[in-house]
């Protein structure tokens, strides 16, 4: 499928989803759906680096929170609409991703993973000690009650995140059949052989870290307006890093479908677990669910749900 066809199809599905949720007239569905969509973006973004090039990033929370704190900082200076904040958050996280890539991409495997974890700790420490954005006390964001043409503010945020999810999936899909996608795959398979075939591996890895980081930052930008109170402990929550790895792993890392399925599945289960009494009303059960599913999939279905279904979606499977 060509990229613009894919984009139109994704937009159609998104529009259908939005209208059917509006039809149900349940504001909570938008509230919970926002989080699920946010994970669709995070999982897709993580997979661009982790799934396509094979570099495991444990620092999702840093890129995500940087986007959120860009909004907090910008909100203190000028009033900007959410899409503009997303762009700003994307630029900041993208630049940090580029820098991280430049400093760490000569590291391989587990050493790269540890470096990204360290980055998350460093960024969190910096933000915690930066008074302008509230420091460890956190920051309040006052949001309007409603937005023109969009109904409630939560619906507006949902729609914005829906649009970002469409963008992220379109990017991931476009990469898969492209020259860039082939280059990413060779990096995952064998970097020395890739270089010998003319693939500029370092530059491609920088493209992947920047793109992945930027999308994570964009996903984080509306967060202050969603939670209205943001502190470093919640913005840098470990759950973001764990989920953004677990979702592609459970869904399947070789194509754009995997992170989408993983995020929809895990994200929805977590949202249900948070509010239902199924597990004795303990929201902490969330991480346990992720952990158990992760163990099950790593043992029984290492190629995720996509692999289980035997769908031939491997990049290049089509011409």
């Amino acid at each position: 499928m060509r990229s613009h066809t894919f984009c139109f199809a994704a937009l159609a599905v998104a529009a259908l989803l939005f209208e059917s949720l509006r039809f149900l007239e349940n504001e909570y569905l938008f509230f919970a759906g926002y989080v699920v969509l946010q994970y669709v973006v995070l999982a897709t973004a993580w997979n661009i680096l982790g799934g396509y090039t094979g570099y495991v990033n444990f620092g999702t929370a840093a890129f995500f929170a940087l986007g959120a704190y860009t909004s907090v900082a910008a909100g203190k200076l000028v009033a900007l609409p959410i899409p503009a904040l997303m762009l700003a958050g994307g630029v900041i996280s993208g630049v940090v991703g580029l820098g991280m890539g430049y400093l760490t991409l000569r590291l391989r495997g587990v050493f790269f993973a540890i470096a990204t974890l360290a980055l998350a700790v460093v960024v969190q420490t910096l933000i915690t000690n930066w008074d302008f954005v509230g420091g460890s006390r956190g920051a309040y964001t006052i949001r309007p009650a409603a937005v023109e043409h969009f109904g409630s503010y939560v619906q507006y945020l949902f729609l914005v995140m829906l649009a970002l999810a469409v963008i992220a999936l379109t990017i991931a899909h476009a990469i898969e059949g492209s020259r860039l996608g082939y280059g990413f795959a060779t990096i995952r398979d064998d970097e020395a052989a890739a270089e010998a075939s003319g693939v500029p591996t370092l530059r491609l890895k920088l493209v992947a870290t920047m793109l992945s980081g930027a999308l994570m930052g964009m996903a984080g930008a509306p967060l202050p307006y969603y939670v209205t109170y943001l502190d470093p402990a919640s913005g840098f929550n470990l759950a973001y890093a764990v989920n953004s790895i677990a979702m592609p792993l459970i869904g399947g890392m070789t194509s754009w479908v995997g992170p989408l399925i993983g995020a929809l599945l895990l994200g929805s289960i977590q949202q249900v677990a948070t509010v239902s009494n199924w597990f004795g009303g303990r929201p902490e059960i969330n991480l346990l669910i992720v952990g158990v599913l992760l163990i099950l999939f790593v043992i029984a279905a290492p190629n995720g749900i996509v692999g289980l279904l035997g769908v031939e979606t491997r990049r290049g499977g089509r011409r």
Partner: protein
Amino acid sequence: MTAPLLQVEDLSKRFGGFTALDAINLEVAPGARLGLIGPNGSGKSTLVNCLCGTLRKDSGSVRFEGALMDGLSAHQRTRLGMARSFQLPRPFASLTVAENLRIPLLYTVGFRRGHHVPRAEIAAREAELLGLVGLADKAGRLPRDLSQVEMRKLELARAMAAEPKLLFADEAMAGLSHGEVDDIITLLRRLNESGITVILIEHIMRAVMSFSDRLVVLVAGRKIADGPPDEVVRNPEVERAYLGE
């Protein structure tokens, strides 16, 4: 005499306290068929790695078509026209056999032309190369389905896909049967006749002797002989290195 295609001066490489290459000097003329031999651990593959940019040299200089290769990474050298096969085949495991050949077509040939190679041409080139090495019926398979011999052929085909001026064939024939060695030699000869300079790193003396028009011998990181194959194998120093005192 024409200008050398490859010019190596005083090239040295150390791993810690171990000198893997000790002041190697080498000139290769365009169109040559050079055989590079030496006992295990003599530095043949290290030399190839330093020339191709996979490893960084410690001192000395490498010139390709007169241009210094200092600081150029492996992919830049590939794009300039050096290609190699690896001693142990290193296929892209998640790509099909045909897709393995597509990578140099996309990234090296496309780059050299300054625009994307059309899809139809890529498919045609893949089919042509696969036919040349006898892997046409494996185009859609993954490398894990190939035998060792087929993987060596894939390795060679991928290097050829980059349309090099200089091809390093690093032990492309190890483990191959008599007839298969002849096939590869025929293939390399045909490449050479089409204008590609070939440096053959090989243990199989029969192959080296029948292919090369010049022989270079490395022993313990030093070049001990360089000249016409018949003379070199009669060189007492070479005999000593291979057969002992």
